[in-house]
Every structure is written in structure tokens, then in C-alpha cells.
């Protein structure tokens, strides 16, 4: 996809974030439902949306800044580093989660341990599925 189109899509996503955020703040007020969780989440969505629009404006202020951003995002070394960091994060999560599951089981928090185990299984499953799909495409 053309980088300018990518930026436009990001702008639309930011607008959706703001609309969603405002809706999550305003709707509970109209329903006279004091839902702190929804309004906090809505506030977070709105802030992320505003920050992304600000970022879009900074990137698109000149041709030079668009070009610089495009290079920064497509730079093969940055992509390599990000991919390696994701791999380390994934591996670290599996190890830490395994230790936490053992501790939780010993402390008799089996429900929480079960939820964490499910997230580990899900991550491993997604990893193998992704590996299978990517290896077939490459």
C-alpha cells in the first residue's frame, strides 16, 4: 500500500477511536449508568485518537517529513530489530507465565492460573499457525 494511503487509513482509525471514546463517555451519562470502566476506557480511546491525529499532522507537515517517516518505517534494520524484540518478548512471557502459573497453583489460585495457562496456550497456538502459514507463503 502507498505510504500516503497508509497515513490516511491511520487518520480514519484515529477518528474512529475518538468517536468510540466519546460514545463510551457520553452514552453511560444519558443512560444514567455510572459506569466508570466504560468512561475510563472511552477517555483512553479519545486520548489515543487525539495523539494519533497530532502525529498525522506532524508527519504530513511537509514532503520531507513524509519521506523521512516512510524511510524510518520501512528501514530493514528497524524491522529486524522489532521482529527480534517481539521474539524475546514472546519467549519471556512464556517463561514468566509458566513460573507464575506454578506459584499460583501452589498458593491455590487455580482459577487465575487457568486463565494465564489459556493465554500461554493461545499464544503458542497462534505462533504455530503463523509459522505454518508464513512457511507456506515463503
Amino acid at each position: 500500500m502507498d505510504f500516503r494511503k497508509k497515513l490516511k487509513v491511520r487518520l480514519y482509525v484515529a477518528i474512529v477511536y475518538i468517536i468510540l471514546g466519546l460514545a463510551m463517555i457520553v452514552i453511560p451519562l444519558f443512560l444514567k449508568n455510572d459506569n466508570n470502566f466504560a468512561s475510563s476506557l472511552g477517555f483512553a480511546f479519545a486520548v489515543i485518537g487525539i495523539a494519533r491525529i497530532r502525529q498525522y499532522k506532524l508527519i504530513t507537515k511537509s514532503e520531507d517529513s513524509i519521506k523521512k517517516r516512510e524511510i524510518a518505517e520501512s528501514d530493514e534494520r528497524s524491522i529486524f530489530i522489532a521482529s527480534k524484540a517481539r521474539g524475546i518478548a514472546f519467549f519471556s512471557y512464556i517463561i514468566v507465565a509458566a513460573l507464575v502459573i506454578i506459584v499460583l497453583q501452589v498458593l491455590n489460585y487455580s482459577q487465575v492460573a487457568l486463565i494465564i495457562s489459556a493465554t500461554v496456550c493461545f499464544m503458542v497456538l497462534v505462533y504455530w499457525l503463523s509459522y505454518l502459514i508464513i512457511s507456506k507463503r515463503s
Partner: protein
Amino acid sequence: MENRIKDLRKEQNVTQQDLADAVGVTRQTIISLENGKYNASIQLAHKIAKYFSLTIEQVFIFEEE
């Protein structure tokens, strides 16, 4: 994998930023290539060699293990 990027750049009076802009990477990537901390992909190696009007083998020195 060693390379002659730094020498070629100096010979032709090219800055790291000029080379980075020409091949579509960041200056940091050129620095890492010159320091031998990062190995270029075949596409990037081709772009760099083309920039200096040389072949990949003339720019990058492959060391057999």
C-alpha cells in the same frame, strides 16, 4: 560479513545521510553496516552496490566459516 562501504563513501565524498537517502534506509542502518553490527539483506546490498556502480562482491566481502 565485512564491507567496503566506509572506504567507498570516503573515496566518493558521500555522507552517511546521502547514502541512506539514496538507498532508502536510516543513517543508523548505514552506521551499523559500516561497523559490521548489521548484515544487509540482498536487496539492500544490491542497492548499495548499484549506488557505487559496483557489484555486490566488490562491496561486501563474504567470509566462509
